[in-house]
């Protein structure tokens, strides 16, 4: 049974569609890379899945509780003077309960997510003082802290060097082995081919959805510079 199914979904702003008739589904343990040029509606699609945009038409059937969906935005617009420790940032993914509720469990969840993303030594550090790669790892820890069954990442390695990007892929691979499903917008074709099992190619609609092997024989793959 699919965890998430999009059936002919059209999304847009102020009633004007930017993404039309998108259909695909996510099964448990899937790692889906969403590929496509800039401005082809990938981030809009993510907003639709997260419920930040209502579909103009079509149906989004999500069998996962909203709080079990982890999300890493393309950009986290935080002022450079914002006072926040890494621990506070990771904990902010838990949006249920009040200040005093389940403190022990919350601490445990934060530590678990931090260890997985290799930021447990940075928990008391100011978030704005970290390197871009460390910030990104901390934000992935935030995404998975609430017990993510589905993790949605919008270009997580866009501003990272090869080593930092490799660390992010390792974390995602480990999450997938733990049973999480992943949807990742990416422009990194080689790593998308290496780590994903399915590809969604977007050009204002779902041009292609299928396995990596199937994708390699499409024109989209060769247009993107992939050699088969």
């Amino acid at each position, binding site marked *: 049974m699919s965890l998430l199914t999009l059936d002919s979904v059209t999304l847009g702003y102020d009633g004007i569609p930017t993404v039309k008739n998108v259909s695909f589904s996510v099964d448990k343990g899937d790692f889906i890379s969403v590929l496509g040029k800039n401005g082809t509606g990938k981030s809009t699609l993510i907003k639709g899945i997260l419920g*930040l945009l209502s579909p103009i038409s079509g149906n989004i059937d999500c069998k996962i509780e909203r709080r079990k969906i982890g999300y890493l*935005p393309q950009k986290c*617009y935080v002022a450079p003077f914002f*006072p926040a*420790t890494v621990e506070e*940032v990771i904990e*902010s993914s*838990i*949006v249920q309960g*009040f200040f005093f509720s389940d403190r022990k469990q919350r601490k445990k969840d934060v530590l678990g997510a931090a260890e997985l993303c290799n930021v447990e030594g940075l928990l008391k550090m100011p978030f704005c003082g970290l390197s871009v790669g460390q910030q990104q790892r901390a934000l992935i820890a935030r995404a998975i802290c609430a017990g993510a069954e589905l993790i949605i990442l919008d270009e997580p390695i866009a501003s990272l060097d090869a080593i930092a990007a490799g660390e992010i892929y390792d974390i995602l691979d480990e999450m997938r082995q733990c049973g999480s499903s992943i949807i990742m917008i990416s422009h990194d074709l080689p790593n998308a081919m290496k780590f994903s099992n399915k590809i969604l190619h977007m050009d204002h609609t779902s041009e292609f959805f299928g396995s990596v092997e199937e994708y390699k024989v499409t024109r989209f793959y060769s247009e993107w510079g992939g050699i088969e």
Partner: protein
Amino acid sequence: MNAFSKFSELIQYGYMQRAIIVGTLVSLCSSLLGVTLVLKKFSMIGDGLSHVGYGAVAIALCFSVAPLKIAIPLVLVSAFFLLKISENSKFSGDSAIAVISSASLAIGVAVNSLSGGTSANINSYMFGTIMSIGKDDLVLSIVMLSIVISLFIFGFRHIFAISFDENYYRAVGGKAELMNVLIAGATAITIVTGLKIMGAMLISGLIVFPALSAMQNIKSYKGVFIVSGTFSVLAFLLGIFISSVFDMPTGASIVIVNVAVFIVSYLVKLIRFGIRNAKAKV
């Protein structure tokens, strides 16, 4: 008679005790609120709303109605409207604040002039006075401000999440609309109850300064909340002491103490940076 004995004599009076109780609570609320508003980049909303409060009080005094009864709902509606507009990129939030702020001030001054005779009373709302908290204001202020403080303590994690990354908070199922309404409500209550002591022209200083002072040297959100609250209450108590002993205007004295706290915090930051850079060179 030295300053302390003069102050201990003044503190025997009921109006002084009421001013200290309400003022302490207002200082605490405004500093907590200040952290939120400054980090959401809504600092000027406090200034705009204080002018709405002034206009509302002028109308209430004109019709001989208790000022808080008119001011709280009016400021609440304006607070919600301004927060909404600031989130909506189609309109410019700062011009909306400027429009509402000057319109309210103009209405306040015009109503006051037309009604005549109440100018002394309304002037106390412009710059604040220590003697203005009546017995009936006391209970209402304590109840309202206690609600605001509870919101910040119990909703702390939610307030952090919505200030740090509102889109993310929405995406993971946080009730962003509800939180924004609560923050608007807290802003309105704090400003209206603080208006009498601080005055419309100066209350926004009480909101912005403690948060900025705390943020100079503290790098965790919880730490900034605690230090900002402490700075604000201490600055208020010192300000009211100076004001009553040297017969200075209350609101102005408190804001001047807050300015001094900010300058000292800033200097401490510079010294810390200097030491750190010197160590790095060695």
